[in-house]
């Protein structure tokens, strides 16, 4: 039985979740953060101060295993629609403090989850052409250890 899967899938789900897509590069972690506007509206009603960049910086951070803060820079933010839901898609740059590895850190994140109790932030890490699921954050959890995935084996 064939259904219009991608076209209609999320539209069947009234509470879309977030996805933080990490990409480990030399000395830095780049990310794309997909946040559904419908769920963000509830969170912003509870925490309305400042613009979206300021909100994200209040609710997303990274640190070394021993608690030294990483630098988080919010880049371009665009809007996108995916399966009937509207998202804000932010480019992020996460950089470790001097001397710390960029391949192992603790993500501290509660955007939307500080307010919406059923909301889940899926964290993935790019590996080759695909991505590994690193973990998921749902209230009250807001800390997730993230390590760079093993490199994909080279094909012969």
């Amino acid at each position: 039985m064939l259904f219009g899967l991608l076209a209609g899938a999320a539209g069947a789900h009234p509470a879309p979740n977030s996805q933080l897509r990490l990409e480990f590069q030399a000395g830095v972690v780049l990310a794309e953060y997909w946040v559904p506007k419908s769920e963000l509206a509830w969170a912003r009603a509870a925490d309305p101060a400042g613009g979206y960049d300021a909100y994200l910086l209040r609710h997303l951070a990274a640190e070394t295993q021993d608690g030294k803060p990483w630098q988080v820079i919010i880049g371009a933010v665009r809007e996108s629609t995916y399966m009937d839901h509207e998202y804000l898609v932010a480019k992020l740059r996460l950089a470790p403090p001097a001397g710390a590895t960029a391949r192992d850190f603790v993500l501290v994140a509660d955007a939307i989850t500080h307010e919406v109790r059923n909301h889940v932030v899926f964290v993935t890490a790019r590996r080759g052409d695909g991505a590994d699921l690193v973990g998921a954050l749902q209230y009250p959890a807001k800390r997730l250890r993230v390590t760079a995935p093993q490199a994909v084996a080279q094909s012969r």
Partner: protein
Amino acid sequence: MRIPIPQFLILAALTSSPILAADSVACRTAKGGAANATEITTALEKLLPLLNPEQKKALHHPFDYGNATRWSNLPLGVVPRNGLRLGELDEKQEAAARRVFEGVLSACGLKLLDEVRLADDWLKAYDKRPIGWDGGNYFLTVLGTPGEKTPWMLQIGGHHLAFNFTFNGHQPGATPLFFGTEPIQFEIKGATYTPLDAQSTAMSRLAAAIAANPQAKLSGTFTDVVKGVVMSGVPGQMPTGGTDTGFPQSYPAGDQDRGVKVSALTPAQRQLAREAIESFASFPGKSIGAPLLAAYLDTRAFADTFVGFSGSPELSAKGSYVRIDGPRVWMELVVQPAIAHPEELHYHALWRDKQSDYGGEIRK
């Protein structure tokens, strides 16, 4: 051909009132299945010879984590199900499958199965994409080998229903049990149906009764049940999740932000909490449902159970939510925007048992 809904249920729906009694008493006082493993095994043995090889293959699967957690609150087009598709059964097969349902479900459980499937039939006219809204897109699945000794599961489910019954497990297993409905109320052929009337009414009456207690108000916002299935996806990738891959769940601990304890309620409020628990626990047959209900209503356990709510106690707005959170029991009901008609509302509800989901038999 669909099996007609018993006349007493139609009458109950037609005479449904804001008071809990009318709808729920009709099914609770009716004779239901015993959920006896031997009887259900016999009913399955009578169904099996009526199935073709492809259907037999669809019906049986190993009892493992991947198969057990393969239930969802999403339509078939989003999360394909294992199992024997009920919409493809001929008259004899359907009658034999019905004997299985009658063996495992109470009269309330049968009513829920019938009416939730009818709700999907009602939605079918609006399924333009399509994603599989159809009362025929409900499935019967057997995990493991039915019998009296080793653990096995019977799953009955589709878009807005997931019955997961475990036999011969560490504990009687009625959960996870997800149920929902869109629309909340509908008419088909002149009859009116309100599939979750008993549960939504019981939860609403409980929330209204405790609303004046500041402790009863849960913090935050609820746009779905908290311990249900979740899915994720981004363009260019297939959506992932949508099944119970979050199992085993973790639950709130301590006394903070869990609502008000039953021990702090008045006798009248306690009675409403009891009725709400009973309304959720009314679906399985006796041998599964009775011990669980007894455990939840045990004097000590019941006293240590929290009840809380968010949003509108009348369940009249999206985001309204009511929860029962005990030493074992976890029951939640949430009001969401409808999908077919977003200006309207629909319900999702979930019953979990912190000890005996899947009979305590599966591990990740």
